[in-house]
């Protein structure tokens, strides 16, 4: 198996080992070793929470530099997601952004929001199927699908087996380019996604279980933003590029995807902690009558990604203004008779469970190890101070038993034993 490629890295010179990220990592994937934060790759879900909370700006998102886009060698297509449109102040026309991308050197643009409107239509179709496990959980946020595959075996078949809009957009964009430019070969087309978050970078670099991503390069929304503001024009009356409706634009923030299912029995949650809580509730089978669940790891939805520029709530307010005079939708997947068929190539296999936290493949051995962890934990102070470099006393005990930490690394025990001799002196 090829190692999973993550998109969060550490700038060691900036990290002072303060333990802020250690305590906030929802996957307990961080340890402080030799004074620096260390990410355990097999546990990381690329949510970007550590980037968000680091007081020293030592955690950085990993993405491709804009200079790597082969502007003159290939037929380049930009895939702007709707969250990009919320980054600009006083934006009247989406076309200003799209024309700006062409002016930067892209040969073509394909809006992810256009693919999202098709996605919504396919979702409504999928929801009509019988015998699908309800509630159906959206597969659009890669953090959520990775989290479910690592921790929620029973929820894997609740996840809608459909490609996310970004991936659909990449495939549709390539096909459109080849149709419009018959002289191009498949390899001449180069698709670039403008990502608001680390998780989509990871998704593109790693692909799905059985799919390679159709995106060739992934750049940061922040990087593109600063190039765009130099070239964007206010008057774009001569261009007609955007194919985004209200539905497509709404996908940028929490609730947008869910409301487009046209079924009131939905739930939409944002923020990784809240996502966790909702998944636990669904997993416990005590769940209200809900048909569709939209989960976004970032606060506010995709506008809250760590690679964006604007405050997510400001971005959301801007999008609300922008969507005001848009038609509900500008894309349709229906045929002449109004029938919608989900193309097979947009469907995926059921998500597979890939447990990472199992102590041993042999259950008797796993029980013995957990027994040892529990007895060590009983000796620890139980204050989860993080001083040892693990997020909790339990995690520390597990690290010790696994041989990745030494018992004497517990700062609190050390402090107590240092006091011990004085006490006995007094007692005498």
């Amino acid at each position, binding site marked *: 198996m090829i190692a999973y490629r993550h998109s969060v890295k550490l700038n060691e010179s900036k990290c002072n080992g303060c333990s802020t990220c250690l305590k906030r990592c929802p996957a307990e994937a961080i340890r402080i070793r030799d004074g620096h934060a260390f990410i355990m790759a097999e546990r990381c879900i690329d949510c970007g929470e550590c980037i968000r909370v680091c007081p020293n700006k030592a955690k950085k998102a990993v993405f491709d530099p804009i200079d790597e886009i082969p502007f003159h060698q290939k037929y380049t297509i930009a895939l702007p997601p709707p969250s990009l449109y919320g980054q600009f102040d006083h934006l009247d026309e989406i076309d200003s952004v799209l024309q700006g991308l062409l002016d930067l050197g892209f040969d073509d643009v394909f809006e992810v929001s256009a693919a999202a409107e098709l996605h919504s239509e396919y979702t409504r179709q999928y929801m009509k199927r019988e015998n699908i496990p309800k509630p159906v959980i959206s597969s659009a946020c890669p953090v959520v699908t990775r989290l479910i595959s690592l921790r929620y075996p*029973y929820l894997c078949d609740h996840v809608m087996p459909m490609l996310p809009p970004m991936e659909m957009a990449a495939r549709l964009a390539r096909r459109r380019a080849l149709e419009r430019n018959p002289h191009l070969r498949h390899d001449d087309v180069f698709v670039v996604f403008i990502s608001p978050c680390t998780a989509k970078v990871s998704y593109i670099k790693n692909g799905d279980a059985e799919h390679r991503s159709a995106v060739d390069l992934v750049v940061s929304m922040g990087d593109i933003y600063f190039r765009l503001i130099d070239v964007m024009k206010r008057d774009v009356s001569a261009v007609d590029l955007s194919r985004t409706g209200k539905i497509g634009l709404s996908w940028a923030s929490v609730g947008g995807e869910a409301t487009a299912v046209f079924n009131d029995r939905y739930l939409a949650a944002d923020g990784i902690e809240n996502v966790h809580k909702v998944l*636990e509730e669904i*997993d416990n089978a*005590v769940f209200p009558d809900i048909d569709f669940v939209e989960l976004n790891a970032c606060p506010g939805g995709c506008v809250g990604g760590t690679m964006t520029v604007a405050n997510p709530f400001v971005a959301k307010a801007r999008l609300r203004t922008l969507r005001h005079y848009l038609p509900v939708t500008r894309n349709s997947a229906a045929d002449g008779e109004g029938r919608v068929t989900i193309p097979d190539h947009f469907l995926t296999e059921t998500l597979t469970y890939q*447990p990472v936290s199992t102590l041993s493949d042999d259950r*008797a051995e*796993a*029980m013995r190890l957990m027994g040892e962890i529990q007895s060590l934990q009983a000796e620890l102070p139980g204050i989860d101070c993080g001083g040892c470099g693990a997020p909790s006393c339990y995690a520390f005990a597990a690290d010790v038993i696994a041989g990745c930490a030494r018992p004497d690394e517990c700062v609190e025990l050390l402090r107590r034993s240092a006091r011990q001799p004085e006490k006995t002196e007094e007692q005498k």
Partner: protein
Amino acid sequence: MSEPLVFTFDVDGENFTSAGEASVEVKKRLRQLGLPPDIIRRVSIAMYEGEINMVIHANGGRATVTVFDDHIEIVLEDRGPGIADIALAMREGYSTAPDNIRNLGFGAGMGLPNMKRYTDTMKIDSTVGVGTTVTMTVNI
């Protein structure tokens, strides 16, 4: 034959929002032991329902989960009001939960029936005015 593993939890009756935390913790531990997903799910659902019951009716209590080689035992003990008519309490849809709890989406009268459905054995010992002990097992 492995030494049985014991997990104990104090279920806080004062704080309704934390109800369900013990079952989340148990689920995490059972996952680390590599138990089959359906076993984990049955244990955690039965435990979750029991935990909610203890918070709603008995002001909390104590939950003990013991992992044996071939089965998992869940014991939920409280010093609540006790159950006067166990057969009635076991009936689907029967509930004595107050309105404020029902407004939160609980109190549908499915707690005990679900606990029985998801486990292999269930025993209720209850004395009115003294408390209730529910013992459930799930075979591995």
